């Protein structure tokens, strides 16, 4: 998910509005986000153009770090807005009382599953996909369902060995989310996990590293990657292809909430309103990296474009307290240990 080393806290500060423009409004909106800066930048620029009087300060984090950072804050130093694709962690923060409600007509057009308590709001529609190296798969059938993939991994072990990649659920927030949701959604997940283990699946922290490895040919297939980044990369890079699984495709939505102790709640509301509005969503649909959630948004990165060719069985992850189940200390320990046993059963693998 990150372009840089995930273990490091990278603070990329983009002052969207020039400092000179800060006049009457005063405080800028401070956004802490676990989203690649290039992905969010078009939205920030559009926001600046629409609101020249309001500066937006943007800091980028890894999902886990962001979560820990927010939890560790006392009364001071809160950002105005927190954005992360780790929906479960965001729900947990809202449940723990870190969010403030936001009620606005702009919410009427959004699907109900992407709004919890008028406090947490999903604003993107990012299917979880398979990514493959086109050259490696030349002349081979593409696995179009989870079952296909499990079968292929078993029957063609030699081809896949050490050349399948996925997230490291121990360090990637979104990786943990999609892995656990796989378990909730599909009865196949156990078998698939086992098959991935047999193929000596490589684990990575971030989408970008996975995509790099697939493009280079180090990996032939990436399992459970965020479709938004993958589709954007596939547009630029002809070496890789994206498969939206036909049996079911989980949909992750990036979740934003305004913090309860936001120093500039008015500015935060303005940004959130823009982000969720048709105007803001259309910017996402036009520019890529994220995929717009708004049902009326059109363009290469809209729901429309995703459903263009086939009729996938999209399975949006519903915002709600059930997402906290896998955050339970025992549950998480148990899941990770099972995951390790299945995927990393050969610790001496290179």
């Amino acid at each position, binding site marked *: 998910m990150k372009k840089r080393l995930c273990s490091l806290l990278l603070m990329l500060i983009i002052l969207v509005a020039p400092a000179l423009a800060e006049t009457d409004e005063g405080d800028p909106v401070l956004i802490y986000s676990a989203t690649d800066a290039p992905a969010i930048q078009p939205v920030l620029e559009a926001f600046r153009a629409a609101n020249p009087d309001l500066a937006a300060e943007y800091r980028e984090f890894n999902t886990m770090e962001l979560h820990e950072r927010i939890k560790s804050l006392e009364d001071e130093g809160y950002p105005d807005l927190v954005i992360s694709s780790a929906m479960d962690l965001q729900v947990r923060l*809202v*449940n*723990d*009382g870190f969010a403030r409600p936001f009620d606005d007509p702009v919410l009427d057009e959004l699907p*109900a599953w992407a709004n*919890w*308590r*008028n406090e947490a709001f999903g604003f993107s529609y990012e299917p979880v996909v398979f990514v493959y190296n086109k050259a490696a798969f030349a002349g081979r059938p593409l696995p179009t369902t989870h079952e296909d993939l499990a079968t292929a991994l078993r029957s063609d072990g030699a081809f896949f060995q050490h050349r399948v990649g996925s997230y490291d659920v121990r360090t990637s927030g979104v990786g943990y989310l999609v892995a656990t949701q796989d378990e*909730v959604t599909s009865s196949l997940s156990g078998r698939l996990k086992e098959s991935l283990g047999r193929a000596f699946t490589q684990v990575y922290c971030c989408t970008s590293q996975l995509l790099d490895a697939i493009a280079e040919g180090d990996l032939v297939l990436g399992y459970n990657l965020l479709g938004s980044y993958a589709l954007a990369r596939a547009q630029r890079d002809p070496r890789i292809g994206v498969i939206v699984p036909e049996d079911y495709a989980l949909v992750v939505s990036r979740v934003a909430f305004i913090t309860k102790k936001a120093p500039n709640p008015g500015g935060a509301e303005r940004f959130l309103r823009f982000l969720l509005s048709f105007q803001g969503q259309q910017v996402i649909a036009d520019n890529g990296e994220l995929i717009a959630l708004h049902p009326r948004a059109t363009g290469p990165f809209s729901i429309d474009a995703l459903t263009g060719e086939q009729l996938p069985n999209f399975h949006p992850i*519903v915002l*709600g*307290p*059930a997402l*906290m*189940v*896998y955050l*339970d*200390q*025992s*549950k998480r320990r*148990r899941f990770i240990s099972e995951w390790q046993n299945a995927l990393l059963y050969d610790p001496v693998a290179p």
Partner: protein
Amino acid sequence: MSTTKRGYSLRRRLLSRTALLLVAVLLLLSLGAWRYARQAADYSYDRLLNSASLSIMEGLLVRNGRVDLDLPYAALEMMQLAPDDKVFYQVRNPQGEWITGYDDLPQPETFEPSDKPFFYDARYRGEPLRFVIQSKRLTEPAVSGWVQVTLGQTLNARRELMVDILYKALLALLGLMLLALAALWFGINRALDPLSLISRTLKQRSAGDTEPLAQTPIQEVSPLVDAINSYHRRLLDNLEAMKTFIADASHQIRTAQSATQAQLDIASQTNDPATLPQRLDTIRQQHLQLTRLTNQLLAHAMVVHRSDTQSLEPIDIDALLKQLLTECVRDHAHRDIDFAYHCDLPHCSLPADRVSLREAVRNLLDNAVRYGPDDNQIDLQLVAAANGGLDIIVDDRGTGIAPHLRRQALQRFSRLATEASGSGLGLSIVQSVAEAHGGDLFLENSPLGGLRARLHLPGGST
């Protein structure tokens, strides 16, 4: 009450009071609906809380002598039936140590683990919550005792359900009340319809209309119609009597006046001055009679008027009679008449109208004097009547009235003896007074040889 003095609308009063009552009932029912809504919402979501906590309980397991939890996804997914509510949970081992979940949930003040779920309300992280504690007794060798699962939920869904139930109940109640008011309006109008009909009919009638009002089939209204008809009939009767009286009275006055006029004419045309004194005397006599007639007419009118308007008050009849007799004796002191008075009763108070009773007895005494001989004896007595009440008796030694003429004597303007200068109203007045007091006048033979007039007044003499 002052309201009875000021005019008011029966319809408006009925409506407003019933509406007030309805509003009171509505308030009471709303209170009930509110309680019910709260109970229903609590009941529903307590069950959800209970089910989810039982589901969490399913995930409990003992491994290596330690209690652990594999939180079932369904447990919290179930809690999403209250989609906007936060969820907090906690699991404690038999030693009361925290195993997983939120470690700082508020605990109930008094709690004894049992097989039954324990519900309580508490605040946590600035929000009011509903909690349940589900306990399970473990009896494995390594771990024995009560494991506790605490599950809490914010109250949004409860409140929403409560408001929803309350809103619908209130809407139904309000609708019902409006319907009741409409029915009431209709009913009251229907009930008051006969009244308007009667008043309309009465208004349209001419004054001389002698027809009674048509009878109504409505049981509640027919007494009113009867009363109006009865009143109407009495009024007509009175009017008839008045007409007759006026006709009689004018006839009498005209007769007396024309007699006086004739005497005056004769007197003015006569050439013989010697006859003048005699004619003057005749005129004087006739004028006296006219005056007396006028007085009697006025007295009669007064007595009738008083009987209509005056209420009776207890007066001392004995004192009244004594005073009257004294006056009478004084008036006739120059004549050789013997007056006597008897009263043996200790107390002679009776409800009566002093003025008209005085007029009546006065008339009886005057009659006795007028129609009796010069050496008349007149006895006035006050005795207890046989059938209760009092009898005022006037006896004289005159010629009396023959029994067959006594009825006639009581009629107005009837004079039995043409030579005496009576107006023909005296006994009629006495009878009116007697009737106004609920009594009667009897003409009988007197032990003195003349007429006995007995005025009977009913009512308890004390």
